[in-house]
């Protein structure tokens, strides 16, 4: 991602939450429904001020739970409204039933998720257990490294979700507190540029299109349920074509290019690390430090986890000797974290597949330090030299 500012861009100092609330203001959605939960609360709280001040035309519903928030935006989206909500952790968990319904009804809802550890024990700090749990719910998932990416991803998410070949909801993920509450310098677009980019929502079907009556979510048994699921899978597959198209168009107005993932100094790397979210910033510093010592290490920061860009990942990772997958979530499968499983499986058929190891780290907001990441690189450089991995799954930074 380059930081070359375009003439319609404005430099601002915003936290991750503020940047997403600001993006929502510029999107000016028709309906927002939400319920407070740390660390997301600020997004909709700030947005409610935009509503109160008349800065947006949004109908803002303060509902009595997250289950109701997701239900309200499903109803609004089915009626043809551009609809958004935001949540974290247990709020997402409480939405669960309706999260699936949103995707199954092919409703292009955009939901910023501020990643936080799921209870229990109760913990308000960052990990990815919340959105990783929703990985099979049929939502597109975009992960952000910082407030800039949270802002940019939110704007792009609207277009991805509403694309006629996709018609699926999108979660825009940012790390709780680490991004959501930290002040960052970022470029924002002017309102007119955002409005021109997001355009009008033109849903193929809507409840308010009274000349073409439709039904959403009816009983769908052995006769057609499977076909509808198959179409849903196709929408997710189509997103693999749509996401780069939207990114290209966004680059045209912002100067910032977004791929499925970012490759950072991976060209001749012997040990590559893959991360989601804010840890990428720390990891880049470690890569730079180790590169200056002549160590061949690099980073892949995955932005798009759903759909998983398998072919692109294979092309990028083929021939790398060692790959360390960093999971900020435990899947309790007794065999490694969710990202590890998916990436390792993606590489199974590829020739010259790297040796893949897994590090589960940072659960419940446990700090990940540069020296921890350096250790991961050192382990993997050693594995690359030796030709085998000693330990497939490691818990990093925990007392055992």
């Amino acid at each position, binding site marked *: 991602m380059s930081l070359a500012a375009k003439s319609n861009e404005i430099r601002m100092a915003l936290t991750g939450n503020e940047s997403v609330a600001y993006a929502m203001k510029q999107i000016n959605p028709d309906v927002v429904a939400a319920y407070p939960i740390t660390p997301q609360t600020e997004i909709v*709280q700030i947005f409610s001020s935009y509503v109160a001040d008349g800065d947006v035309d949004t109908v803002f519903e*303060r509902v009595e*739970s997250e289950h109701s928030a997701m239900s309200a935006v499903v109803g609004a989206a089915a009626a043809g409204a551009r609809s958004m909500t935001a949540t974290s952790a247990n709020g997402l968990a409480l939405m669960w039933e309706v999260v699936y319904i949103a995707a199954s009804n092919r409703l292009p809802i955009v939901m910023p998720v501020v990643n936080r550890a799921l209870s229990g024990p109760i913990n308000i700090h960052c990990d990815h257990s919340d959105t990783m749990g929703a990985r099979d719910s049929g939502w597109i998932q975009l992960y952000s490294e910082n407030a800039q990416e949270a802002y940019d991803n939110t704007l792009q998410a609207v277009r991805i979700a509403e694309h006629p070949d996709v018609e699926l909801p999108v979660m825009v993920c940012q790390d709780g507190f680490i991004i959501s509450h930290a002040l960052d310098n970022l470029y924002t677009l002017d309102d007119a540029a955002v409005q021109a980019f997001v355009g009008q929502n033109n849903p193929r079907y809507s409840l308010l299109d009274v000349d073409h009556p439709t039904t959403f979510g009816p009983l769908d048994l052995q006769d057609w349920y499977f076909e509808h699921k198959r179409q849903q899978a196709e929408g997710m597959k189509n997103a693999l074509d749509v996401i780069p198209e939207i990114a290209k168009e966004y680059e045209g107005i912002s100067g910032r290019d977004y791929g499925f993932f970012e490759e950072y100094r991976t060209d001749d790397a012997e040990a590559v690390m893959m991360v989601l979210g804010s840890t990428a910033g720390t990891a880049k510093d470690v890569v730079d430090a180790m590169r200056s010592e002549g160590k061949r290490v690099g980073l892949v920061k995955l932005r798009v986890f759903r759909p998983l860009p398998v072919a692109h990942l294979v092309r990028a990772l083929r021939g790398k000797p060692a790959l360390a997958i960093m999971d900020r979530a435990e899947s309790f499968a007794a065999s490694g974290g969710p990202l590890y499983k998916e990436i390792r499986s993606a590489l199974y058929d590829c020739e010259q597949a790297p040796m893949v190891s897994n590090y589960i780290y940072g659960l419940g907001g446990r700090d990940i330090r540069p020296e921890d990441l350096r250790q991961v690189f050192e382990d993997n450089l050693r594995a690359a030299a030796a030709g085998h991995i000693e330990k497939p799954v490691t818990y990093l930074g925990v007392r055992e």
Partner: protein
Amino acid sequence: MNDKLKAYFRTDHLPHIWCPGCGNGIVTAAIVRAIDDLGWSKDDTVFVSGIGCSSRAPGYLDFNTLHTTHGRALVFATGVKVARPDLNVIVITGDGDASAIGGNHLIHAARRNIDITTICFNNNIYGMTGGQYSPLSPTDSFASTAPYGNADRTFDLCRLVEAAGASYVARGTTYHVTPLTNMIRRGLEKKGFSFVEAMTACPVYFGRRNKLPTGVDLLNWQRDNAVPVSRAAKMEPEELAGKIVIGTFLDVEMPEYTETYERLLKEHAADRSGE
């Protein structure tokens, strides 16, 4: 804190997280005094809480405690009570926890008349998340999500619980500590579902936005606006606008859920043995 009360607290978890001027400590102490009055054993008493400022209270109490999910404390508590009807089960909840996300569970716990005492710390706001308005934020009051005043109507939780079928319903305030303690004690003694709404001060997130910026302001507000239920009965609705009606609204004897359940089991066991 005096030594007698200290014995009921996990003093190694103190100081608590509540803000200066918060009334939650007063309510928590009232609960402990009521338990002390009754001479209940800590080992036979279970506290269950949900999510929010009030729900942190059991963390400081040296009893059997279960800190659960937002709005669901009553359901977890129902599980505890049906499994072990011999235990004293107390739910600590807040206005957002009990009346919004968990409103359905409140209605059904009252309907069953299960022997659980629920203390609702009503600070009129979602304090833990930074002051968004709750279903018990007064209409026209200010909140972080209502910068020009709250358009929603509030509701009377005591009347709701009474209508749903509870055995004991009362409302007190942190200004009127002794009556509050007595209400809680009566609620604990009551066989059946008991509900005590305790008006508590949130100066940081409710008071500051509503011209009551300190804990003292909010205590004085409680003092100046509380109307005993007997006097309220003689007042017109317009006169009661903005007032807090305090006192006991309901205190009746009705069949309790776990006892009814136990009796059914015994009757049917007798049926089967007679066959």
